[in-house]
């Protein structure tokens, strides 16, 4: 009898440590954001009484041109990053899956950028893209082309960062989709081959449909990461020149820790959570409509 009862509470006991950590450091702060967002908390008043200000922080954000411009920058940054990373990652995963000699070694090499931190990626590309002594502009000059102001031209800077982010992020998609390709049984392809399907045909009719669950999760992850990502930008340009490369997440960080406006930062944070949820939900909808049954959190 006693044995039975301990059996029943055992799983809960096993889960206590992880749930405790997640509640204290993830769930509670998340909800606390709401409280902070309707008070006036800044770095200078962090320990003193916080004045209740109602929706003021929200209203001031709505009319803030800096926030508006950061949204535009975010859309371009996320759109560019996700498109590039996804298609390149898919191509690389498929290409490396074609019985190529040394494909394991190649995969290992391709993964390296993902094992390197965003800060380091940022510095390396800041060095390579440097306007005056960067090797890239030197290369362009040698080829008789005009040098480009990679990091100081407001209309160029964001794409420079997208390229750096591509280098850093593509390996994850490649790795993730490779895992997906490994999960497709070769028998399926053999059967298709016997039925006379060409390689292109089997790619569109077998590979892509069977990869769908992997593609869905991959897209959700890389989209969210791009929405929230700012360490790379912080290192490369700190959001400049002017605000040309300040994404919404970097805007949040700068408002909170550069200008000390913690409450205003919280409002942007809550807004970002909303964006993340809407995006994840749209992907799920989109893939459902396509007729695939995808269960993300299947247990």
């Amino acid at each position, binding site marked *: 009898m006693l044995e039975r009862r301990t*059996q029943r509470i*055992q799983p809960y006991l096993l*889960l206590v440590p992880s749930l405790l950590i997640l509640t204290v*450091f993830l769930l509670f702060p998340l909800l606390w954001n709401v409280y*902070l967002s309707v008070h006036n908390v800044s770095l200078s008043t962090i320990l003193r009484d916080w004045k209740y200000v109602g929706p003021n922080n929200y209203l001031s954000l709505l009319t803030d041109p800096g926030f508006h411009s950061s949204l535009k920058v975010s859309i371009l940054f996320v759109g560019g990053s996700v498109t590039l990373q996804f298609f390149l990652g898919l191509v690389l995963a498929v290409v490396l899956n074609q019985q190529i000699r040394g494909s394991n070694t190649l995969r290992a090499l391709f993964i390296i950028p993902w094992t390197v931190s965003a800060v380091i990626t940022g*510095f390396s590309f800041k060095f390579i893209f440097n306007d005056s002594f960067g090797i890239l502009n030197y290369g362009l000059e040698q080829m008789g082309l005009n040098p480009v102001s990679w990091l100081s031209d407001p209309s160029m800077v964001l794409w420079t960062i997208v390229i750096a982010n591509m280098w850093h992020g593509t390996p994850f998609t490649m790795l993730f989709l490779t*895992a*997906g390709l490994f999960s497709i049984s070769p028998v399926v392809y053999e059967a298709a081959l016997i039925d006379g399907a060409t390689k292109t045909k089997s790619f569109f009719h077998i590979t892509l449909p069977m990869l769908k*669950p992997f593609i869905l999760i991959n897209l959700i992850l890389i989209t969210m990461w791009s929405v*929230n990502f700012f360490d790379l930008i912080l290192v490369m340009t700190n959001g400049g020149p002017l605000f040309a490369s300040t994404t919404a997440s970097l805007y949040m960080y700068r408002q909170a820790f550069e200008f000390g406006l913690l409450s205003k930062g919280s409002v942007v944070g809550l807004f970002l959570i909303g964006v993340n949820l809407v995006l994840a939900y749209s992907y799920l909808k989109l893939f459902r409509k396509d007729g695939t049954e995808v269960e993300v959190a299947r247990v």
Partner: protein
Amino acid sequence: MKIFFEKSLIYSVIAVYLFITVAPLVWVLSTSFKPNQEAISFPPKFLPNHPTLENYLFVMTDSKLVLSLVNSLTVSVGSTVLSVTVSALGGYAFARYDFKGKNLMMSTILALFMIPVVINIIPLYIMLNNVGLLNSLVALVLTFQILIIPLNIFLLKNYFESLPKELEEAALIDGCSKIGALIRVTIPMSLPGFLIAAILSFRFSWNEFVLPVVLSNKPDSMIFQVALYQFISLYRIDWGYLTAGINIAIIPVVVLMLIFQKKMIRGLTLGAVRG
């Protein structure tokens, strides 16, 4: 003819992307062996004119940087051990027990994984400030858990599920307690799974920047990524020193990843999606 065309297309894609991947790394590596002046000379020289180890000597003898390296190692090892332990317990509960609220809990944990940690830095900053844990390594070890635990629970749950239940049952019949079976049978069989989880945890902790730059940026508790970032606040970046620092930061993770690359993909196949 067609096959030849196909093969050359495949190999050119690989060659181009291999160049894109490796070139920046090689360039940074080469720069780290140049004296500071030469590092930013124009036109750039591919190989150092006067190869030198002074940049590495600088990094390895600067007391602030060395301390930050030690801090990074401490935090990474600490948070790896903590997260693998805690997640193994949780993952085991999900894999081997049926209990009320199981599905809900698993979905919640997965949903939490999607919540951007960035959004939590402001409340975490205030929280840790109020309990006096700001600028401490403990704060980093604890907060890093939110980056890693959900993924690790998921990976390890699937890993436990892939192990045959029968061996444990046999141990139970032979008179082992459930915990005894866990320690004598399940844990030894799960070591490869723990290894994958540990490598991923280490990679996340070693590279994390956003949490430490906000929560722990004083010299005593600074980690290496933040110390590198401080190069920027200097009037002019010393690229020679910085590139040496970059290579020192890259080495441990790249070595780990290269050694265990094959296992990682297998781990992801098991862990990521089972649709």
